[in-house]
């Protein structure tokens, strides 16, 4: 589904991603871990098409198409979804209105009929239940004044509404208590299917107790320096990142 080859990216002429290689197949869950400042969010943003990051080398293929050639909205239309580490507050735009516009734009680009108000509300109720998000929250301005947990749940709710092929969750677990974490994880798990894939960016092993990954990758200084099965996450939790850093230092 997704093939990242030697991806390099920089911001303000500062190289941040220094050659990422990653292959993700439909049905898989990949966890990306690593110390702060490694470039995890940068990778997520580059995949979603944030313009302030300049891609300086490499390629990204998504279902046979060149992802890097697409605008952010085109990427959304082909099924990329990024749950933001820091969701943006947008005063004056309600979540409902925003999502209705988004969903119908995506449908339009796929040649599908737009949902009318009733169909949309029905779908919304269904998905809101899935992530246990309150109706009243959805009527408010997007993320405005939401608590950290509410913002993260709203991200997962949006994901549930848009049903992406590839969901990238950037530290969706940070700032969540254990109940909220479970709700978010359940939401993600309900959306898992043989046709789609998930990238879970996280600091902590605990989310991976609920969303069990097929692979774990360690991103450090702009490179994937280690990959392994789900047990790697446990090892990282136990031993921290120092041994990885030492391994990297030894090979350089």
């Amino acid at each position: 589904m997704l093939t990242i080859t030697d991806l390099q990216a920089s911001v303000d002429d500062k190289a941040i991603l220094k050659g990422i290689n990653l292959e993700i197949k439909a049905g898989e869950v990949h966890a990306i871990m690593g110390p702060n400042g490694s470039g995890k969010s940068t990778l997520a943003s580059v995949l979603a098409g944030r313009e302030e990051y300049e891609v300086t080398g490499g390629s990204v293929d998504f279902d046979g198409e060149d992802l890097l050639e697409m605008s952010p909205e085109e990427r959304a239309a082909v099924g990329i979804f990024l749950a933001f580490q820091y969701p943006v507050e947008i005063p004056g735009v309600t979540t409902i209105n925003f999502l209705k516009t988004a969903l119908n734009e995506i449908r339009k680009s796929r040649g599908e009929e737009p949902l009318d108000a009733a169909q949309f509300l029905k779908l919304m109720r269904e998905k809101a239940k899935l992530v246990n998000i309150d109706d009243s929250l959805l009527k408010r301005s997007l993320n405005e004044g939401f608590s950290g947990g509410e913002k993260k749940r709203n991200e997962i709710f949006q994901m549930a509404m848009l049903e992406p092929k590839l969901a990238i969750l950037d530290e969706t677990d940070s700032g969540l208590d254990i109940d909220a974490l479970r709700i978010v994880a359940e939401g993600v798990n309900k959306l898992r299917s043989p046709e789609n894939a998930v990238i879970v960016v996280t600091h902590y092993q605990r989310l991976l107790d609920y969303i069990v990954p097929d692979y774990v990758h360690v991103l450090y200084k702009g490179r994937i320096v280690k990959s392994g099965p789900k047990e790697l996450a446990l090892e990282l939790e136990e031993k921290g990142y120092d041994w990885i850093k030492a391994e990297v230092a030894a090979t350089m």
Partner: protein
Amino acid sequence: MVDNFTKTLMSNTLNNDLKEQLVANFQATEGRLNGETKSAVHQTRRAAMQNFETLGFPTIKHEEWKYSNVSNLVKQAFDFSVKTEFGENELATLSIPNLEGNVLYFINGIYNPELSNIVSPESQLQILNFGKAVKENPTLLETYFAQYANYQNEAFTALNTAFAHDGVVINVPAGKVVEQPIILRFITDARSINVASQPRNLVVVGKNAEVKIAEAFRTMGENGAFTNTVTEIVVEENANVQYYKVQNDTEKSYHIGTTQVCQKQNSHFYAVTVTINGGFVRNNLNIVLDGQNCEAFMYGLYFPNGKQHVDNHTLVDHAQPNSYSNELYKGILKDKSTGVFNGKIFVRDGASKTNAYQSCRNVVLSDEATMNTKPQLEIYNDDVKCSHGTTTGKLNDEALFYMRSRGIPKAEAQTLLMYAFCEDVISQIKIDSIKEYLEGLIAEKLAQ
């Protein structure tokens, strides 16, 4: 032959000086007044004309007109005869859907009774056009007319006062709640010639009375339009007035307007001024809080694009203690447009416990557009709470990316963000038909 030719040439040159045209027109009009010249109203007109002649049109050397240059206006020739073929057919092209209430039409500044419809009972609402009021209710005019707007020092107000012949005189008797809104549509028909019009309105809202009034300006046609309007509003004790000013004019139009408000104690006044289009717009909103425990709210929205120029000057004069004023103006500027916001707050030395807030926020979408903001606080009392702030910026890139990453195309995301930016002002409009009309116009304008 040659002499005639020279004469024509000369008179044409003369005709291009607006001040001279106006002086000539004043004299001609006065000659036709027949008896009315002795009336108090006309004495005021005459005094105002003298003031105008002395003051002349302001230039950019005048501090209040620094960013708003009328030099092109005063070189144009205008038709004052106000003849127009405007009727039902034309109106159909300019209709505002679902317009309910007391709807009055002024075409080229002249009241059109055929198109107008007054639905509120006379016990609630007395509406006369200005000319009729001069004859039928001279006492009301003698008491209130030109008592508030400054025709002594303001050239355009002097000019309007000198030419005060039509417009509306509204009287809401004490204790009356006018359920139906009053909608005044000022339409300039500039299809065949440059048109000048100077509506003059007076609104007196009695003790404990309530009313909603909208002034909607619209210009049609490709020729020049010069609208110079003055509305005086007296809000008596404990009265409540909502006032909306809506402008949708043309690239060649000049609109200069003053809304002069006098609030007595415990009164409430809300103003929302929305400028959709207009080549040159200058709105003066002056509120004197001449009583305790008053509340005044001023909201504004403007969307200049192309080479449009929109200037909002506001003045709140806290003349008495314990009153509250709050102001929020917002603008979105595109292309080579220019905007001005000048907000004055006066707190007089006796006006302790004043609360006065002011905010002006702008989104400037082009490097060639300019917004000039100038808050001016003159506070002569220590026991007050006042704040002001202005911001001028671009659309939020983070928000744009967020929306696009959810599949919303860039242009649409921008429109949504711009619309959201306006939302807190739009939501202040409490006449449904006017609000819907504006929502449509704003969405259209933002999508351009």
